[in-house]
């Protein structure tokens, strides 16, 4: 389930509570973003234990440095996702590099390709969970339920024109996952 959009007020208050050293606030933060963080980390690393480790690291970082989040820069959710993404990709590159150094198979180019693939996949996941619900619903029907756009229109109670528009826009947003360097979720707020 996608967390419903939190008002910026919640983000600011959360930051203040964390800064104040309120333990209950970290619990609430985990309750809201724990599964997002873990699933993103898992998408990058493909490993349960490693994803657990990143999850612990992300929340510990937020707890230790709540002031590194600037509410003016965007929602806390995107910031947490970006942090997760960065740490997970770092970890993946480090483990793969170590494996390579110890005589593992493959080349540096393959390693970079693998890291990039994982990174894009995680960014795509985040974009899907963050895009406007109507776009996600259209993609869901057309892709997972194999409905054509006319059936999609009927299912969603919109015109065929609108169904085509949503499918195209949804894929356009998703395709930004390939844009390296962009923070995850860039373009997700359309």
């Amino acid at each position, binding site marked *: 389930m996608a967390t419903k959009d939190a008002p910026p007020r919640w983000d600011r208050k959360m930051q203040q509570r964390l800064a104040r050293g309120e333990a209950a606030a*970290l619990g609430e933060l985990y309750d809201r973003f724990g599964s997002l963080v873990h699933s993103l980390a*898992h998408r990058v690393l493909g490993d349960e234990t490693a994803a*657990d480790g990143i999850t612990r690291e992300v929340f510990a970082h937020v707890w*230790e440095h709540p002031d590194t989040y600037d509410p003016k820069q965007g929602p806390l959710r995107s910031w947490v996702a970006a942090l997760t993404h960065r740490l997970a990709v770092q970890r993946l590159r480090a483990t793969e590099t170590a494996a390579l150094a110890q005589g593992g198979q493959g080349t540096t180019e393959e390693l970079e390709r693998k890291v990039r693939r994982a990174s894009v996949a995680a960014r795509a996941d985040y974009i*899907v969970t963050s895009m406007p619900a109507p776009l996600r619903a259209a993609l869901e029907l057309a892709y997972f339920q194999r409905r*054509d*756009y006319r059936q999609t229109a009927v299912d969603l109670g919109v015109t*065929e024109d609108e169904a085509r528009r949503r499918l*195209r*826009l949804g894929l356009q947003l998703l395709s930004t996952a390939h844009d390296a360097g962009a923070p995850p979720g860039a373009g997700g707020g359309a």
Partner: protein
Amino acid sequence: MTDAQRDGSEEYEGYGEGAEEGAAVVPVQGGPGSGGPPGEPGGSEDGGSAHGGSGNDHRVNYGSGNGGSVNDGGDGDGMQGGPGGPGGGPGGGSASSGSVGGDGEPPRIPMPRASVEDTGRPLPELDASESRPVPLVLEHRVLKALLGAWALAACSAEETEAVEEHLGECGACADEALRLRGAVGLLHPVEPLDLDPGLRTRVLTGSFDRRPPRIPVPEWATPYDAETARLDALLQDIGDAEWHAPVRLRWFDGEGPTSRRTTVAGVIAHLLTVDGLVAAALGLDDPLAGEVDKPATPASRTEAYWRASYFPPTRSIRAPWREQSHDIVRTVSFTGGTTGRLAVSYGDFELPLHDAMLDRAFECWVHAEDIADAVDYPYEPPSPRYLNRMIDLAARTLPAVLAERRRHGLASPGGGRSLRLEIEGHGGGEWLIPLDSLGAVGSAEREVAHIALDGVEFCHLAAEHVSPEDAAAGQLGDRGAIRDVLFATASLSRM
């Protein structure tokens, strides 16, 4: 098509969405009344005729109105008089038959397709044209709008063919098509990942090791914090329909088991209202604030809450329940030092706040199990540390319950006896229960009986999820005393 034409059509924003729709799906021309002169295919694109024509039988004339921009301009007759052709007839002739009936030119007008779902009306007879595929001719603007559907393989065969032909000619669309196809590859079914329920505790303790909280959650409130978080994670995973799965609440009413039927959402409403006793004691909003005559016991509060809403509770109950549980944890963190001994009234008895929080943690787990059973999800017992404290609360409460039962003639009298309660498994331990006096401390010298059972089994007994007769308990010693304690444990349960 020239570039100028292509661009022209793309930039022609004046058509807006309506016009695009008109071009793509709404029948144009050919209605009995609007069978305009064959010479003006372009004119049909204006909204007026598009909408006016919607009463037509033959629908979806993709080619119509595109004449100028799509067909290699010059041979205006390529449109066969376009939609006008059939329009000239009685209106019954379908677009395709009109075009096919042309002068041997490759038919350019598509056959009607698929859009019957839009109208609920039956398609006209198409047998004549169905037998031979007719290539579709669409203008750039329409094709571009189709790219998303195309990338997802969600348009008709004719449209797919038209799009793909277009991609060979239009670099901009080809680029976008490539990008969108790539994006489709990024979609994947979401594998439901069961988050390890223990991860929350590990995340919190790891963080607090690095930076000790200035305002910690009191130790006695952590089981409640953990159990509500666990239940919330379960609720996050269940579907809309599952919120209405039937659940039977069971408890022990003095002498025997009793139960009440509700739903998953009803159970959360129950937890919300009874947790509300703690909230109210802390000065937070009582979820039953609207009630005039505020009932005091867990059961009466729950019934009152269920009665008060006309519709049965739905998954919308999750948010207020969760918000209240978060607020409770937060509030006791701030006031913990002073409020631990604050009395929480359950109507006919009171518990100090720290025991009430433990009791609510226990209830949360027990009902989470009820819910998990109802929706067929696995659910683990609490962590041994918390389980141990829940068992300890029950063991500490037993002397009072025994005294109460004795007053009602439900337990045998005696003097100064103790019973050894040995709880096995995770979270276990040993408790000496004084049987005959509230203030007494259990004494090993006066031990008259010994019960051994598993921790989770003991909790199930205390929650009336297993009956005193059926509890798998190792027993040694005074049978009467053992029976009294097992029944007293069962009667700890309440709605």
